[in-house]
């Protein structure tokens, strides 16, 4: 049951016929893991907190550095040197007192992800390296939980939902595990609001998964090119021989 203050807080959701009070209640009951409290994780966690996701698990083992503040709007000057999850947690609690936030400070390996995926309804991948991306995917497939994947660098972003149904592709149907690339923002840079666009699109897909509003954008990859303001959709199909999700 939503309290009277919650009904006011969420009134702009509840008036949407596709959400309604029942949908907001589902959002309140939901548990979501956000891996990475950097450029993507900042808007994902802030919007999911504002939107009322009842229990947010946030994971990051890094500390806030000055160069993060150019785009990681969940942190601020007072956060420099703090653990990212601690800084994030104070911002999130100030945005919404009705939600629970659990911080995970360690690096996530297969075991930690296995444990976490057993607890949540969905995982949002906001991390910055392929190794963790593949590990998150393995755990999501094992526990049959939807994975909302975002990535951004330079002026580019990508978005996809994996593992939404049995018929959906998984991350490894799209990306080969032998890929030799880990471009990061340190080497390559990133335009500040580009991470915001991909992160907010991830938050939107997460809310659609939780509430069953609209059509979840699975089975496709969205490519965003900020330099010419272009969005493209590429169809992604399940790979029957996928080592992770194949039969």
């Amino acid at each position, binding site marked *: 049951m939503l309290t009277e203050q919650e009904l006011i807080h969420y009134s702009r959701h509840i008036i949407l016929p596709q959400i309604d009070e029942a949908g907001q209640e589902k959002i309140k009951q939901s548990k979501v893991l956000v891996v*990475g409290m*950097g*450029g*993507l*994780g900042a808007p994902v966690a802030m919007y999911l907190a504002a939107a009322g996701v009842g229990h947010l698990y946030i994971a990051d083992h890094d500390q806030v550095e000055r160069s993060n503040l150019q785009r990681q709007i969940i942190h601020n000057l007072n956060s420099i040197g703090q653990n990212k999850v601690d800084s994030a947690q104070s911002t999130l609690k100030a945005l919404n007192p009705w939600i629970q936030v659990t911080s995970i400070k360690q690096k996530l390996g297969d075991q930690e992800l296995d444990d976490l995926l057993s607890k949540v309804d969905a995982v949002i*991948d*906001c*991390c*910055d*390296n*392929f190794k963790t*991306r593949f590990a998150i995917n393995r755990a999501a497939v094992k526990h049959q939980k939807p994975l909302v994947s*975002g*990535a*951004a*660098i*330079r*002026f*580019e*972003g*990508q978005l996809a939902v994996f593992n939404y149904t049995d018929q959906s592709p998984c991350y490894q149907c*799209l*990306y*080969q595990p032998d*890929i*030799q*690339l*880990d*471009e*990061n*923002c340190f080497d*390559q840079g*990133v335009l500040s609001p580009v*991470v915001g666009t991909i992160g907010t699109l991830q938050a939107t897909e997460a809310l659609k998964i939780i509430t069953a509003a609209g059509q979840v954008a699975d089975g496709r*990859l969205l*490519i965003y*090119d900020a*330099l*010419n303001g*272009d969005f*493209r*959709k*590429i*169809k*992604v*199909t399940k790979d029957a021989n996928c080592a992770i999700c194949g039969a």
Partner: protein
Amino acid sequence: MINVLFFAKYREQLNMDSLQLDADFSSVQSVIEALKNKGDTWHQVFTQSGLMIAVNQQMAKLNSPLKDGDEVAFFPPVTGG
């Protein structure tokens, strides 16, 4: 004839968003070979790790077959967050 599109970083590096190849190509791999021969920058772009390929707006592989009139798009992998 094959329509070739370049997205994101590749579009920038080649300074071109599309071109038309007026010949027959049996597979994506053969298109890549043709593009590599267009010059140093081209060779560099098409030997990068993780090159992603879509044929007619659907993800494809190096050995994906092509037919006349197909659209082949190349775009880079992204892992940052």
